[in-house]
């Protein structure tokens, strides 16, 4: 090598604290890489920003008339809709996590990662966290657009932040689900298609777009148990008022429960892949 102080691998991290530190730093390094990817791929930027904004605008104007009539009291459809759209867009965006990981696995760079002394979890964690950061940015943009067409948070700043956080947690859980899917279903296209096939009915069979009371009994019964309903109800209550605690506890239980199962499965699968 040229004259350099760095000629050897740094000492092996010892102890739980040091290892946890390096896991977090590796994850952050991979996160930065993935965030740079979003900025440099116009296709992803368009998909992740314009589409949810279109949903907000189109749904509120197209369905606002009939949906507004079905809503209690003076709630306008945009007020009802926006927290739901947060959840819907997070769910759809999570398919991009699968695409991103599947593309990575087809690229040589992940081979290099795997031949290096870095944390194994960082490749997966760095992707879900980057997707989380992007998701929160998109939600902020949707809020800005919604404010232009009449949406208002009525429960104060803390509740509004809480609404975004519960959606963020839901999005993180969905990203890990799709990480797992991408590790078992080979190919980016397949992972995305499989994702939409499952997600589409789940998104509509929930309180995201319309109140459950307007659905046939059997559908309402199914939708009332859906984690998408719990997440949407929580975000809605924290945005425009209503019962927040019960749906929040259910939503958090679902998200934490699924992640507790899915993350170890995904990490083990990734470690054993060749």
């Amino acid at each position, binding site marked *: 090598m040229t004259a350099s102080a760095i000629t050897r691998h740094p000492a092996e991290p010892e102890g739980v604290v040091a290892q946890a530190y390096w896991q977090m730093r590796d994850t952050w390094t991979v996160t930065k890489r993935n965030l*740079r990817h979003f900025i440099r791929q116009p296709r992803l930027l368009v998909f992740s920003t314009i589409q949810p904004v279109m949903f907000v605008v189109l749904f509120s104007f197209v369905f606002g008339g009939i949906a507004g009539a079905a809503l209690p009291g003076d709630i306008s459809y945009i007020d009802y809709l926006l927290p739901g759209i947060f959840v819907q867009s997070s769910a759809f965006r999570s398919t991009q996590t699968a695409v991103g990981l599947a593309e990575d696995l087809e690229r040589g760079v992940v081979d290099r990662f795997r031949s290096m002394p*870095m944390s194994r979890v960082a490749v997966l964690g760095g992707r879900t966290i980057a997707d989380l950061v992007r998701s929160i940015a998109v939600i902020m943009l949707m809020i800005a657009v919604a404010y232009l067409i009449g949406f208002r948070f009525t429960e104060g700043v803390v509740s509004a932040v809480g609404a975004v956080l519960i959606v963020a947690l839901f999005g993180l859980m969905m990203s890990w689900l799709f990480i797992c899917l991408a590790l078992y279903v080979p190919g980016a296209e397949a992972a995305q298609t499989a994702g939409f096939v499952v997600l589409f009915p789940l998104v509509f069979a929930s309180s995201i777009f319309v109140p459950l009371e307007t659905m046939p009994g059997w559908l309402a019964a199914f939708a009332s148990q859906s984690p998408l309903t719990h997440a949407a109800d929580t975000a809605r209550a924290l945005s425009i008022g209503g019962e927040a605690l019960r749906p929040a506890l259910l939503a958090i239980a679902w998200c934490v429960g699924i992640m507790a199962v899915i993350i170890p499965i995904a990490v083990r699968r990734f470690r054993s892949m060749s």
Partner: protein
Amino acid sequence: MSAVPAVSVENVRKNFGDTEALTGVNLTVDEGEVLGLLGPNGAGKTTLVRVLATLLTPTSGTARVLGHDVVHEAAQVRRKIGLTGQYAAVDELLTGRENLRMFGELFHLSTKDARRRADELLERFDLAFAANRPARTYSGGMRRRLDLASSLLVRPDLLFLDEPTTGLDPRSRNSIWDITRELVDEGMTLLLTTQYLEEADQLADRIAVIDHGHIIAKGTGDELKDQVGGQVVDIVLADPADLNRALDALPGAEAASGGRTVRVAVIDRDPLEVVGEVAATLNSSEIQVRDLGLRRPTLDDVFLELTGELAESAPDGDDVQEVVA
């Protein structure tokens, strides 16, 4: 330094379903040595490198790298190796500088050291001018250099170079060779895979020939050439139509490649005498020659002898050819 070999492979097999990629490899690489692993496409070179770099688990057998088992002590192995792959493993969307900084951080350098190291390597590998361009805009040669630099952010004890020049034009190939020789001069242990005989001959101390998933010959370039036999006289005819006449006129002659080359083996005789006889015979038969020479067998001959097929001598048409920058 120590008696522990840099690489020791014992009877390693690797199956992918019904396909046997490695059928029992035995191999040792000593510390400070450059071993050339030579074989045609599909011989198992890359599979073996992937096993040694902890990316693949062998189906059976044991492999140790720098004293550590590649399966049970994979983490220790990864701390000591560098891997430069057949298809440059850099991030296409990041710039050259961002790539090196990222890999530096993932090798657990401090942010400051990672930055400094990245700048040093960009300079050393002649990439400073393109440091802020995304890697996808790089030519094939630049990409390989970036890939190689990415393996050297911290100095590995053992560097794998998996077909480092496949698909490169001669100029880029020479620049990779120069860099490789510098690393060798600095005493780095290298395991180089290649399908080019010339590359193995140029760079490696010792060559292992691999075919159908196992090692079929080992030795220095000279030793391998001696296995094939002694010297030959090669006659390139001016007119290919004279081929049969030449074969009839020269006792013991064989047709060689290309349809216009005739080869006479020199066995237990004075080579000059044989050259003289061949020249006299051709002259009296009025056969015109373009070239006539005494030579030792090349590694091509070795390969043909060992595997019964011709090795690649030019870049593979399937590979992305680089545009000369």
